[in-house]
């Protein structure tokens, strides 16, 4: 019948379009969207900060150390002021409300004083990279600088980069006492659980002060 022809043609055309669309969608979702990882750069992204670099503390009569005010990691382009962080009412570590700044946990030693100083920052926001986005690129020997309220500079050298499941976070290793001036930089990493909106792991960069 002549009237069937336009309908049939439409059905064929529409069917092919739907097949094409379905196949395209299928192919696109077969490829997982890769993490936004930047190309690794070997050249320092920022110059080292200037300032009088102080020697690490002596165990006899250590001088009091001024509070930290900023953090610079030249190799991965991190330059951030340091806000202060405490504990939540649940006893967990507070995190910065901005994903663009890092914070020093005031319940930990000051960077450059004897002990394990703790600095944390977000790896990302809901939409893009955060201040500690490239933290996992750091390797042994990389330099980290903390400027203090009195204008002095403490220089640290990365000694280790570890990833821990949050369920098995090694509290003693990260927050426990140490005999030299050390820094621990913490951010999130590992797999992201979309159901809860949280990363499953923490990345911890350990660094020791150098003279």
């Amino acid at each position, binding site marked *: 019948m002549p009237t069937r022809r336009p309908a049939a043609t439409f059905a064929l055309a529409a*069917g092919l379009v739907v097949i094409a669309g379905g196949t395209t969608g299928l192919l696109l979702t077969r490829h997982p969207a890769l993490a936004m990882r930047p190309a690794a750069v070997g050249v320092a992204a920022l110059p080292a900060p200037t300032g009088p670099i102080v020697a690490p503390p002596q165990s006899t009569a250590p001088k009091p150390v001024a509070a930290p005010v900023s953090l610079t990691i030249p190799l991965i382009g991190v330059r951030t002021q340091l806000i202060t962080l405490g504990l939540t009412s649940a006893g967990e570590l507070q995190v910065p409300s901005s994903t663009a700044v890092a914070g020093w946990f005031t319940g930990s030693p000051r960077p450059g004083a004897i002990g394990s100083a703790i600095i944390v920052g977000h790896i990302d926001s809901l939409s893009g990279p955060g201040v500690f986005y490239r933290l996992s690129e750091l390797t042994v020997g990389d330099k980290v600088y903390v400027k203090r309220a009195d204008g002095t500079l403490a220089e640290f050298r990365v000694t280790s980069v570890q990833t821990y499941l949050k369920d098995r976070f090694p509290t003693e290793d990260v927050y426990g006492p140490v005999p030299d001036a050390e820094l621990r930089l913490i951010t999130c990493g590992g797999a992201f659980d979309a159901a809860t909106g949280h990363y499953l792991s923490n990345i911890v960069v350990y660094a020791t002060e150098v003279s």
Partner: protein
Amino acid sequence: MNFRDAIRNLLMLLGVSALLLGIPAATAYASSATTGTGWIRLAHLSPNTPAVDVYLYSFGNSNAMIVLHHVAYGTVSPYESVPAGDYSVAMRAAGASATSQPVLSTSVTIAAGHAYTVAGMGPESGLRLQVLEDQLTTAPGQAEVRVIQASLKQQVVTVTLGSTVLASGLKFASVSDYQPVSPGTQSVTVSSSGGDTHSSVTLAAGTVHTLVVLDGASGLEVVNLEDASGSGKPPLGGVSTGFGGTAPHGPGSPVPWLVAIGAGSLLALTGGLRLRRDRQLNTGI
């Protein structure tokens, strides 16, 4: 294209899609080996022994890893971070040749994550090198303290911190055990047959200290060494420092797409068959 070609192309597309369904998402994150290092510091705590040069050798190595020159009584070096392993410590008279026979030597095994003090202790006539392991943990919210008695003039001392007795009748060249104490600034009293000496120390929560009783210029002195420091009240668990904006998205469910392809195929088939029949009827096949 004709109907048969359309079906063939569709099947090819479906076949390719099926292949791609099997590709897994690869994820990797960086981690590096844990450092196997420990810490060691060197001390001269023999009141009547002149200054010494102190050498640290890693086992089997005749070249010293660390040399401290002219270390006088009462000196405690800062901690050095060294690879875990076996070492030897030697003391020579200050200025003596590095190849001369040491006055004293001892071996020490440094375990990863542990800290040690190697101290020249005792009177000069009975000088010995003692290896002390230093504590690196505190009870939650507390500080930890021990006493090294290095006074020869007052052979026996009792040391109290506030109202806590840290060491009772501690003999010369002895070390008390670490004890947990409440944090804060408190007065330290060293009592001996020569009288009492008072001073004040501040011990923060999460810190480990060694108080050393020394013969000072005019009576006993107390030196407060901070052995280690950490968070007095550590946070619980991990840290929530990410929102997922840069996280990889896993492959979505293929089901809705397969349903769409199926529906589209049915629609195309129906239309195609109708057109075919229509053409057959019209051309009288």
